[in-house]
């Protein structure tokens, strides 16, 4: 059922009309990030801002989605409200398999609905509903209602936004099936600008599988590797939260707005501690037997006489870093309470946490005042951080309105740029050293997963600029191939070249094997071309002073090495994203 061409549903919210499109390009772009970039080239506008109704919001899956375990993610691409450039974000849940079973390689949403709407697409269905009554509903409540209006439990995915998306905070996320998110760079904001509260994808078809034993046997083999070997034990066991303790020991755990890179308190919010005190159960993306999603619980007394309620809140390493360590909230249930509010408001949790960390330090230093923050934000004070989150989502004043557009944007007006922990966007939780800082600050998605800069820092102590840059470019390219498949990056140790080749072969797509590396390069270049075409200038990216003040296990950051990497990586990006020669590719 893997086609030579892509089958795309384009939904125009302005006209209410849907169009089914077929596009060639499987051999050039594979799917996922490649397909999304290809579609952005066709439907996006380099000369219009992110909130132009005609800008597309794209969801794309890969050729192997659903065919193998952990081929379970969706790539979401859009022009970002955060920096007004091309961006993408990944999420799982049931989104990928729902698109597969809706018989779509991609869903492209353009236009703007007149009133707040919900969209439902399936293999035999396209429908928009007026949901103006949901305005202001939080993301969880929205999910509950959408479940009722578009039935299909177990074979649908529900994507939705909270108030932050409606109010156009630049880092509103799209919540996917309660526990997953297109978190970064404002996908939820794009939905908000389109007046689109929710998307329900009905995965209501099935497809013939290749005959013969090969495919089934290979599936079984991969499934077994993933479930019985140690390879994925980390993700299944403590989950990514397992990283807290080792990063703390390595002096690479951002703490208290990166005033510190470790803390004796870190153990109180470690993966071990979360597991022991709050872990309720695991969950998984559809098609993934690993189940890395960790759901914790908080219980709260809401009335005297032992009246309690409880909530279930998903946690991971990143949210614990941003709403725990960065805010010096060192009690697991308190971290979960903050995360719960972020979840409901529909914000990216890393951005929200890091923004509040900056605001806390700014208030402490007198850069801003209580008049601006409204509540006395203070390290460790979960209650006020919960209020802070709500105010980012629903700003009561100019300060929060600006903070909701990005920490650095706010700092430029109020001061305190030096200690804004922004690497392209609010940073991820790795203070491992120079290579990571540059990788995230300049990288395509400003994500720690763009390339393994954090692990490079941990592996190599020497300061060989060329070697580090070579690594960043080639590692990113390899990850792009997996992002074209839209496999979970946690499985990158499993789906090595040889296995990937076998996997494609077994579903009759072995012909692509020869060209995977060149596809990776083609997509890498196309993505940069789009970024640069929208005004990205990597040389203008600055690294806030705070990053030169930190100390990691290697000692203090070396500003010269940092700068050489910055200039070098910017040059590589400019080169990769250079316009095509006239003859074309």
């Amino acid at each position, binding site marked *: *059922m893997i086609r030579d061409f892509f089958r795309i549903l384009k939904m125009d919210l302005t006209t209410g009309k849907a169009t089914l499109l077929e596009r060639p390009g499987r051999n050039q772009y594979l799917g996922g990030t490649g397909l999304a970039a290809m579609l952005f080239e066709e439907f996006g506008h380099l000369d219009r801002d992110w909130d132009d109704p005609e800008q597309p919001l794209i969801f794309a899956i890969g050729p192997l989605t*659903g*065919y193998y*375990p952990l081929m379970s993610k969706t790539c979401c691409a859009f022009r970002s409200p955060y920096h007004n450039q091309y961006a993408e974000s990944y999420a799982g849940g049931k989104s990928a*398999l729902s698109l*597969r*079973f809706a018989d779509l390689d991609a869903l492209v949403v353009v236009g703007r609905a007149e009133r707040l709407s919900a969209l439902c697409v399936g293999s*035999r269905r396209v429908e928009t509903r007026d949901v103006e009554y949901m305005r202001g509903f939080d993301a969880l409540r929205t*999910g*509950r209602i959408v*479940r009722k209006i578009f039935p299909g*439990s*177990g*074979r649908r995915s529900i994507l939705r936004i909270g108030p932050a998306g409606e109010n156009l905070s630049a880092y509103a996320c799209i919540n996917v*099936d*309660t*526990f997953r998110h297109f978190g970064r760079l404002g996908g939820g904001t794009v939905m908000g600008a389109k007046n689109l509260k929710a998307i329900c994808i009905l*995965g*209501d*078809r*099935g*497809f*013939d*599988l290749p*005959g013969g034993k090969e495919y*089934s046997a290979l*599936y079984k083999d991969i*499934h077994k590797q993933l*479930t019985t070997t140690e390879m994925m034990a980390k993700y*299944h066991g403590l989950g990514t939260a397992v990283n807290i303790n080792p990063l703390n020991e390595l002096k690479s755990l951002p703490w208290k707005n990166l005033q510190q890179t470790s803390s004796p308190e870190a153990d109180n919010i470690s993966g071990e501690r979360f597991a022991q005190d709050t872990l309720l*159960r*695991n*969950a*998984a*993306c*559809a*098609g*993934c*037997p*690993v*189940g890395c*999603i960790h*759901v914790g619980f908080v219980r709260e007394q809401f009335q005297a006489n032992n009246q309690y309620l409880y909530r*279930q809140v998903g946690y991971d390493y990143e949210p614990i870093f941003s709403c725990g360590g960065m805010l010096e909230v060192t009690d697991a249930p308190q971290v979960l309470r903050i995360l719960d509010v972020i979840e409901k408001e529909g914000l990216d949790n890393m951005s929200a946490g890091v923004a509040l960390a900056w605001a806390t330090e700014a208030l402490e230093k007198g850069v801003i005042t209580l008049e601006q923050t409204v509540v006395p934000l203070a390290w460790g004070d979960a209650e006020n951080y919960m209020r802070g989150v709500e105010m980012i989502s629903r700003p009561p004043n100019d300060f929060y309105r600006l903070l909701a557009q990005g920490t650095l944007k706010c700092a430029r007006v109020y001061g305190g740029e030096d200690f804004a922990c922004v690497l392209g966007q609010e940073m991820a939780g790795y203070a491992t050293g120079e290579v990571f800082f540059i990788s995230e600050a300049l990288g395509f998605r400003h994500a720690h997963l763009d390339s393994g800069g954090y692990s490079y820092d941990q592996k190599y102590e020497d300061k060989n600029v060329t070697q580090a840059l070579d690594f960043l470019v080639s590692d990113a390219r390899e990850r792009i191939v997996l992002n074209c498949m839209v496999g979970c990056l946690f499985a990158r140790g499993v789906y090595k070249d040889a296995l990937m080749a076998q996997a494609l072969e077994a579903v009759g797509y072995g012909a692509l094997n020869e060209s995977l590396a060149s596809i990776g390069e083609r997509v890498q270049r196309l993505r940069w071309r789009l970024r640069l075409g929208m005004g990205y200038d990597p040389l203008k990216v600055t690294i806030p002073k705070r990053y030169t003040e930190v100390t990691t296990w290697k000692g203090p950051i070396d500003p010269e090495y940092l700068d050489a990497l910055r200039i070098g990586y910017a040059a590589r990006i400019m080169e990769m994203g250079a316009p095509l020669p006239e003859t074309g590719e």
Partner: protein
Amino acid sequence: MKALRAVRMERCIGCHSCSLACARQVHSVLSWNKSGIRISSAGGLSTGFEARLCLACKPAPCAQACPTGSLAQRRDGGVIQKKNLCIRCGECARACPVDAIFLDHQVNPYVCIHCGRCVEFCPHDCLEMEELPRTPKDKGGSDD
């Protein structure tokens, strides 16, 4: 005679490995519906998951409702499916008290045949093949 039971669903992580395995191995399709076992959340993901699958009734209402004998009673419970006899009327799914039979858009019924091939794909050991109690009266009346 054994039947598939979803005995430990409180452990379920919602990975759909079981339904994908059934669809793949038993029905040769890529699907999470066209399968003898389907996973859905009880009411949103925070409520946990439930499995829709054949409870191995005896007598089986679906078999009784089937006008063509496409679904026939198994000796100790559940049904045997003969796909070539099916006229796709959908009566079986309507008759099933627990919504265990899935009808695709062409009204092909999918029902668990209790072969147990999904069991090894469940990473959390939620599923199990259990011996069904023998029905004394029907001794010797085996049709499996």
